[in-house]
């Protein structure tokens, strides 16, 4: 999907995702530097801490917009199936690892890794789902 740029909805989606990724890196660096230089106080602390999450929310909204814009039923179905696959996988991993942390004192997996792991699983699902239709 990422490589074929003939589809207008896909092209817009890829551009949005790149913008969101770039903003996420930029905001993460800004926030990390801000916390390193001098600890902000009050409500600003919370706002600075969630700043890198905003482009991530934007990327999720962008995915929803793509699903609405995509006129090709087959492509939309491929992404929906991949998202559902990624969802099942990330919920399974979070539950299994959560139990391991809670009972067996396994190393703590930070919550911020849930989002990138979800997309890794979506990518893997996309490959599997695409293969099924070949």
């Amino acid at each position, binding site marked *: 999907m990422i490589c074929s740029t003939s589809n207008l909805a896909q092209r817009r989606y890829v551009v949005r995702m790149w913008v969101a990724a770039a903003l996420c890196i930029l905001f993460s660096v800004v*926030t990390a530097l801000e*916390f390193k230089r001098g600890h902000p106080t009050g409500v600003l*602390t*919370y706002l*600075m*801490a*969630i*700043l*890198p*999450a905003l482009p*991530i*929310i934007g990327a*999720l909204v962008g*995915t*929803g917009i793509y*699903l609405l814009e995509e006129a090709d039923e087959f492509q939309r179905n491929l992404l*929906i199936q991949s*998202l*559902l696959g*990624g*969802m*099942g996988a*990330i*919920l*399974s991993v*979070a*539950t*299994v*690892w*959560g*139990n*391991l*942390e*809670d*009972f*067996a004192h*396994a190393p703590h*997996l*930070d*919550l*911020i*890794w*849930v*989002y990138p792991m*979800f997309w890794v699983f979506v990518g893997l699902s996309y490959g599997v789902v695409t293969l099924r239709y070949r």
Partner: protein
Amino acid sequence: MICASSSPAMKRYNYRFIATMLGYVAFLGPAAWVFSHHPPTGIVAYLLAVLPAIPIVAGLAVAGIYLGEEKDEFQRTIFIQSMLWSIGSTLVVTTVWGFLEHFLQVWRLELYLVFPLFWFFVGVSSPLIKARYK
């Protein structure tokens, strides 16, 4: 959705899902008791910690089976949309809270809570999505 049991696939889904949740309770109780009274070590600790997660993973598989079995296109669409909204909402919460934990050391949201959080959002989004089609 739980109340609308007109579709045979939905009925089967409800029975299977309840069975997985009963399995969860049946596994969680003994696992928690063993860890608090006779804490196991090594591989046994890991296997026992993973035990309550198995019915949870099965619950996700049951949802996938339902999507494969459901003949009513409308019911399937509602279910898919509510799951997509819910995974989006769950990822927003885990990401925002993850950054708050990372930068501000706020109260830790345990990973095993991601799964109930997801189903909470399914419960909230399903009636809203249904209401849109009324």
